[in-house]
């Protein structure tokens, strides 16, 4: 953004411009290619309104559907046969199931961080990515919820997890971290869903008001609850949104802390560690942001959202990945230091065994993907390169899955008694369930992209300079949005796509 354009105050930031440049005294634009609210609406809504979707969507949906089928087969086989179909043994009684559970819960955390914590910190760039990051949270927690449900063996007794009066006059044991986990994850899911839906209401109203088909009008209209943009409603809505953000912030920090208690409260060397809660939370945010980048890169390409999810958004996310990756690296080294410093021989053995024992390969995959490769994000060229960030985000996803695998399996496989040591070898059911969860996630996410607004339309508009009633353009009598003219005179006006209002009879 040049100084002159900022001084004029009404020049449109060019589509595809580099908004990653830091220029003191000026705010980098977060919405490119337009200074017009209607264009933003069109850009987001055309994804759901267009009669067809890109071929890549169908390909991805087909692959996801097949993986979902594999999940169905694997889970049914497990339920009808028993948990023996997994590669579990004594002592490795938790392996892929809990690894997948922790992995998916962790993925979810970035969505809540973006929607709640960045909201409290007034990070306006969050508006471009918060909607689909929150959707990612919900779908990831659904995937996570499967694993504790099916690993109990007798699935039909899963309701024993909840304090429901029963004829045995027995209750759950509330001193167990496993029960804290039930409450933490179900609360997390409920609150995330509510937060997401409250955010969706104004955008569903936008879709309702634009819908041409009866089914769309009815469906969007039903869920928009009759929203009509009333300022009296907006007032309570904004207070409620702030409250939800303030409630979700401690919640998200507590959820992965409670997940880490599942391990830390036990006596097993490698699990019994006080660093676990912050270490797990940092790791969760790390993996979640990587997943957001993995999803955002293809989504903005496919659906033409590059002016709303700009390079600055991706650059910021890559910075978060770098920071949290360093925190995770610090936690890895601190675990080793404490193992040595504590003087506990079992603890020392566990950590040396992790790096050089039978699971050395998993440990070094974890270290390379989580600590070494993210260091490339120190370079701005890497942070702003689409292929580089996509590959690095995939590495982080792989690395974080292996982190949980290393923590769970390597600690269990070689515990106190060498006579009980064993090795975990996954069966096809383990692998089908793991891949199938990605299928479930993919199906839900692709349906979301197709039928719901992928970007928070109202929130993106509210961070445009034109949304401020005291914007300098208005002081000059620059009637920005009244009337038929969409051009803005500036040099970049020619680069704007000429959007036509699809509805007939509108003034």
């Amino acid at each position: 953004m040049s100084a002159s354009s900022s001084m004029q105050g009404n020049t449109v930031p060019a589509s595809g411009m580099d908004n990653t440049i830091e220029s003191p005294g000026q705010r980098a634009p977060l919405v490119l290619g337009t200074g017009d609210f209607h264009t933003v609406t069109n850009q987001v809504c055309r994804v759901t309104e267009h009669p067809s979707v890109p071929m890549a969507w169908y390909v991805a949906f087909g692959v996801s559907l097949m993986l979902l089928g594999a999940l169905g087969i694997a889970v049914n086989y497990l339920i009808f046969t028993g948990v023996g179909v997994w590669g579990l043994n004594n002592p490795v009684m938790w392996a892929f199931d809990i690894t997948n559970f922790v992995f998916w819960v962790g993925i979810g955390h970035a969505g809540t961080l973006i929607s709640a914590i960045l909201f409290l910190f007034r990070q306006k760039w969050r508006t471009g990515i918060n909607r689909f990051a929150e959707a990612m949270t919900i779908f990831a927690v659904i995937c996570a919820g499967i694993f504790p449900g099916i690993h109990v063996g007798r699935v039909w007794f899963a309701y024993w997890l909840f304090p429901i009066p029963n004829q045995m006059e027995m209750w759950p044991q509330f001193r167990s971290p496993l029960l804290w986990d039930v409450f933490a994850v179900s609360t997390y899911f409920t609150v995330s869903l509510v937060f997401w839906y409250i955010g969706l209401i104004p955008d569903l109203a936008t879709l309702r008001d634009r819908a041409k088909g009866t089914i769309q009008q009815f469906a969007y209209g039903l869920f928009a609850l009759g929203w009509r943009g009333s300022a009296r409603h907006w007032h309570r809505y904004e207070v409620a949104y702030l409250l939800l953000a303030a409630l979700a912030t401690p919640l998200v920090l507590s959820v992965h802390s409670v997940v880490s208690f599942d391990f830390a409260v036990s006596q097993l060397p490698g699990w019994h560690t006080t660093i676990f809660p912050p270490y797990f939370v940092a790791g969760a945010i790390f993996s979640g942001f990587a997943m957001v980048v993995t999803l955002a890169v293809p989504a903005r390409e496919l659906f033409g959202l590059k002016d709303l999810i700009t390079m600055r958004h991706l650059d910021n996310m890559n910075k978060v990945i770098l920071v949290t990756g360093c925190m995770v690296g610090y936690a890895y080294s601190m675990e080793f230091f404490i193992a040595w410093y504590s003087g506990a021989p079992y603890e020392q053995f566990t950590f040396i065994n992790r790096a050089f024992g039978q699971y050395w390969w998993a440990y070094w995959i974890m270290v390379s993907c989580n600590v070494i490769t993210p260091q490339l994000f120190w370079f701005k060229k890497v942070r702003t390169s689409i292929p580089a960030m996509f590959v690095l985000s995939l590495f982080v996803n792989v690395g974080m899955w292996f982190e949980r695998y290393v923590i769970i399996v390597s600690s269990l496989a070689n515990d106190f008694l060498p006579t009980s040591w064993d090795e975990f070898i996954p069966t096809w059911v383990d692998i089908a369930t793991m891949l199938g969860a990605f299928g479930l996630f993919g199906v839900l996410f692709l349906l979301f992209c197709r039928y719901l607004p992928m970007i928070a339309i109202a929130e993106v508009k509210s961070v445009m300079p034109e949304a401020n009633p005291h914007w300098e353009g208005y002081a000059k009598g620059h009637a920005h949005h009244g009337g038929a003219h969409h051009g803005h005179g500036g040099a970049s006006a020619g680069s704007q796509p000429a959007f036509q209002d699809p509805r007939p009879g509108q003034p």
Partner: protein
Amino acid sequence: MTTFATPSSTTAPASTETSVAQTWGLVARFANPAELMHAAEAVRKAGYRYWDCHSPFPVHGIDHAMGISRTILPVVVFGAGAAGCTLGFLLQSFTNSYDFSIWAMVWVTGYPFLISGKPLLSFPAFVPVMFELTILLSALTTAFGMLAFNQLPELYHPLLKHPGFGRATDDRFFISIEARDPQFLRSKTGEFLKSLGASSVEVVES
């Protein structure tokens, strides 16, 4: 529905009465958030009570311009959070620490668990669930309380029927004044809205 036309000054009060019966109110369109805010200030100063602004996003400072008093939602949410915390403690201490019976839809009895010599009333172990229930009840109260105070869902509303008003969720800014307002007079109110710089003033039928 029909574009507002300046009525003749000879409009009798009786005919105004009949038109009020069919008229929900007037809706005026403004060009941008700045004009909306200036107009909102003027409407408040003119003493109207049943009126509202409509915008595709929350306009910063409009609640002050309109004189909206702050919602009591946070107080309600605090109450719900305190209730959730108490409920969490009572649930856990009853089910894990005592063996008396209470009526909760059915007669239920507590079950004192003795696990690894921990005290029956082990408060620190109960903290996570108390915390989660505090958040759960607060968040649900926030969401449903906001909808209740806003009187949503309200799937039918005269404004939603009004052609052109659909752009209020897209890129347009409106002020609506309801006919039930004691100050409402179709001609006078329409003129007033025009004088505030509205680009169009239309009658909304109920």
